């Protein structure tokens, strides 16, 4: 369904004002591969993912996205990836469906309903997200990342706050889409690492 996407990270470093977070991280992943990034708390996993998503800038290094042979320019990346992170908060005053519609690019209502019922939120679809529990919010985040069936999926701690049923849904979804998608997961959970084909430990790379 998708053309071959690939993602190349070349010697990315990030320094906040006073501290070095990580240095010279390189890896690459292609469609069909799932990649994990692990490391102790504060080692910069989330930052790494946000840099790949383009919402933060790296101090040094380059990132290449390509589809087939063609490189995707920085401005068009939005439409090619899905991103989720505990730092991405849906709007409290909107319902789940409205949040998803806001994030997606022209998805039909049936598709949204389908996703909502898949993640078990269909009964709550007309409630404001502000009234959701944190696990339900996490489900909304996951739907937002996956709704457009993006070629590249960046997941930052995807199973945080999820109960075991939620995790099962998430893992089966990942299984379903993994052969058409580049998946990058930043996590410390063993179950999630087991899903992946390869990965790095940021902290070890630093040494």
């Amino acid at each position, binding site marked *: 369904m998708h053309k071959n996407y690939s993602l190349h990270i070349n010697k990315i470093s990030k320094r906040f004002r006073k501290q070095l977070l990580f240095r010279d991280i390189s890896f690459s992943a292609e469609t069909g591969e799932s990649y994990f990034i692990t490391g102790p708390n504060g080692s910069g996993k989330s930052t790494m993912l*946000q840099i790949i*998503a383009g*919402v*933060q*800038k790296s101090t040094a290094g380059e990132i290449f996205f390509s589809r087939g042979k063609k490189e995707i320019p920085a*401005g068009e990346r*939005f439409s090619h990836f899905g*991103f989720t*992170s505990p*730092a*991405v*908060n*849906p*709007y*409290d*005053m*909107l319902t789940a469906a*409205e949040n998803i519609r*806001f*994030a997606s690019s*022209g998805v039909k209502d049936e598709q949204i309903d389908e996703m909502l019922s898949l993640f078990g939120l269909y009964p709550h679809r007309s409630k*404001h997200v502000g009234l959701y529990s944190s696990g339900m919010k996490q489900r909304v985040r996951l739907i*937002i990342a996956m709704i457009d069936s993006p070629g590249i999926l960046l997941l930052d701690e995807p199973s945080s706050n999820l109960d075991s049923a939620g995790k099962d849904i998430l893992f089966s979804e990942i299984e379903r889409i993994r052969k058409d998608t580049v998946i990058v997961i930043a996590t410390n959970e063993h179950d999630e690492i087991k899903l992946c084909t390869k990965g790095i430990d940021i902290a070890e790379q630093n040494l």
Partner: protein
Amino acid sequence: MQSRIFKNLRKDFLIEFRNRSAVNISFAFAGITTLSVSLACGGATLSPQIHSVLLWIIIFFSGMSGLSHIFIREEEERTSLFLALHSDPENIYLSKLVFNIILFSCITALVTPLYLFFMQVVPAYTVYFILTAASGSLAISSITTILGAMVAKAESRSSLFTVISFPVMIPVLWISIKLTSDSIEGGAPPELRSLLFLLAFSGVIISVSYLAFKFIWTEQ
């Protein structure tokens, strides 16, 4: 691109409409300031210049209380990352600008008639007066949109917002005050060049902000 702007606008209006407190407070602020000024003046006869100074001070502070809210809300509710992931900076800027222009036009449309009514002022040139109020509030909202985006990222926002807006807004306030007092007083014929000045000023600010917004919104 346009659909993105409409989506952002729709979202902002939905949120503000459901959570009316912020908008209500800025309207209440505007109304109460107008009332208290007219109450304090208590039927004294003031010169046109004083009238226009008072009117624009009310408008300025009403703007200060309401216009930075649209960006601050994104930071306070920590939704700015969500927004940044799904829209280009340019679209975000344009949709917030349109929102602010609409909001501030409503505030001006509330304050000005109230002021005229309570202070019993009848402008000599009505059309000229309305045009001045409209283009003055356009200029104020175009400045405050970009400054609101800056202030949302900083600490101690609300007082900082007034501090950083004031110097940039002085030319607008001066010209608007002068034009308003002319239009209340009558006498000298309307000066279209100054009206054009206000429009040109908003145009320049909007185009520079459009270009520079991404430097504020995304990290450099």
